[in-house]
């Protein structure tokens, strides 16, 4: 028997495997049992309805995927009224990913979610453009990241996870700023900006031009970001980026993540999350590891471990 229960701040998850925002929906219940997951994470919800970006929205790269979906959706009110009842059918804690174009709108939306039954935590997706800062993502700089986090923190008492972006010079500084501003966990990381060009038409393959790179090609970068954050903060980290096997998940745990999210892999293997979960148990069993928490941070530099 391997103990899988995982504490993420105030929340205890049955196990450390969950979906990545934007790559998951209740539709997956047609393929597998969602109640086996440690948590459910919604696609990012925005205050206003949005159409999303120009098509095409996906382009394949070598072992990776570029996307520029653009967070289409019906907006927060429709989410609360229409999507929430559907989500409440499932057992695992529901984490609502929240995105907004300004600090004030982050705060307002957080207050709305706080008043919505069935929301277990907010995952603040601060990788989105900040319209008050020339469209740069909140997550690019420690100051703007902290401002968004503090606003959400002040507006609601829900467990607050913050999803960081790789598109920054110093992820450790951003991580520390988010921790100081009230984040209870960090989700590391969103996609990194990339580009692909169709050489026959000389146009970007994505309608929006640039897009976010995810999938196995991105994994070494995401793993490094987790490793850097784990050495920078004391709050739990949820690792995400290119995880498609249990071995990948073990790498993230050893790099300091307490839990993992699986995104793009579910497109290729719809049951990828359960494969990761089952494989994690098998790995622990084979290695005589009784609690998956023993893996967390196992590969971090010894100094760090000694200091804890």
């Amino acid at each position, binding site marked *: 028997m391997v103990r899988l229960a995982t504490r993420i701040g105030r929340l205890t998850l049955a196990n450390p495997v969950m979906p990545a925002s934007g790559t998951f929906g209740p539709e*997956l219940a047609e393929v597998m049992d969602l109640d086996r997951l440690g948590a459910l994470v919604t696609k990012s919800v925005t205050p206003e309805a949005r159409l999303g970006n120009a098509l095409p*929205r996906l382009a394949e790269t070598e072992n990776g995927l570029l996307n520029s979906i653009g967070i*289409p959706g019906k907006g927060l009110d429709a989410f609360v009224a229409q999507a929430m009842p559907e989500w409440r059918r499932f057992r695992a804690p529901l984490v609502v990913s929240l995105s907004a174009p300004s600090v004030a709108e982050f705060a307002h939306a957080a207050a709305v979610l706080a008043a919505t039954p069935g929301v277990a935590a907010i995952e603040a997706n601060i990788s989105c453009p900040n319209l008050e800062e020339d469209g740069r993502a909140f997550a690019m700089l420690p100051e703007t990241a902290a401002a968004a986090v503090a606003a959400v923190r002040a507006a609601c008492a829900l467990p607050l996870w913050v999803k960081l972006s790789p598109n920054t010079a110093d992820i450790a500084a951003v991580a520390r700023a988010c921790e100081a501003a009230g984040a209870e966990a960090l989700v590391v990381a969103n996609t990194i900006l990339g580009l692909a060009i169709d050489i026959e038409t000389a146009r970007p393959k994505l309608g929006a031009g640039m897009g976010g790179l995810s999938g196995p090609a991105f994994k070494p970068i995401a793993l490094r970001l987790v490793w850097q954050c784990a050495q920078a903060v004391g709050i739990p980290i949820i690792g995400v980026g290119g995880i498609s096997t249990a071995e990948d998940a073990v790498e993230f745990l050893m790099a300091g993540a307490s839990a993992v999210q699986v995104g793009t892999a579910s*497109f290729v293997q719809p049951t990828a999350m359960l494969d990761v979960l089952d494989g994690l148990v098998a790995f622990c069993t084979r290695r005589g590891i009784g609690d998956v928490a023993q893996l967390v941070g196992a590969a971090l530099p010894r100094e760090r471990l000694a200091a804890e």
Partner: protein
Amino acid sequence: MDTAPSGFAVAQVACPVLESVAVGQRYHRLVVAAPGLAARTRPGQFCHLLCRDAGGSGPFLRRPMSVWRIGADGTLGFLLHVKGRGTAALARLRPGDALDVVGPLGVGFALPPTARRILVLARGVGLATLAPLVGSGPQVHAVLSARAPGDLMADEFGASSYDAVFDSDGSSAPAAVEALLRRRFETERPDAVFTCGSNRLFLVLQRLAAEYGIPGQVALEQQMGCGLGMCFCCVRDIRDEAGHISHQRVCREGPVFDLQQALAW
């Protein structure tokens, strides 16, 4: 093989390839054993195929492919235009190899319960999507459009009654097809019409069907990520009854849409 009932509507199954044959210059036929899937698949639905040859080479994402044959013997058939990296990998599969299939997916065709006679208008490999309508009940008349006689694949479509039109002799031009359709609508008015494979022919059929008051459906295509409704990569503009245009997911609300509600692509 997916013989065990999983309790889930959609399954991921490693299906043994039974047949893998080139059709003409540019097309390919794949038949796999998939009893569980075949029993659940309806005309117009599609599967999401992992395009990896026996050595594991192929593109990162799956590829959507209409179910072209739903065999009573528990087989599923796909008819593909070998176009890029994904379909090329599929065409390299050999009998005995495994094809990793996720399905059945999407919303298939809805035949009006009283339909006794239907017309289908197919361009190129679009006929694969429409083929399961043959034998689904009503009498089928087809208008098949192809580049040239060698590309027609009338045998693959399987209807005994069809008109063939070609680019090579000009008979596939929209005006010519319109004239042909008008003749049929006047003489042997169908109870419903269905199309797939060409934007231009879709527009002709949409206009004529509206004029004649014949209900119809169109099967759309769009690039897919998840195939399951989760990624919003596959949207198309669809107009609802109130005239409001919104993005609908081809993989989820489609691939089959009302002929009058779909917009040109």
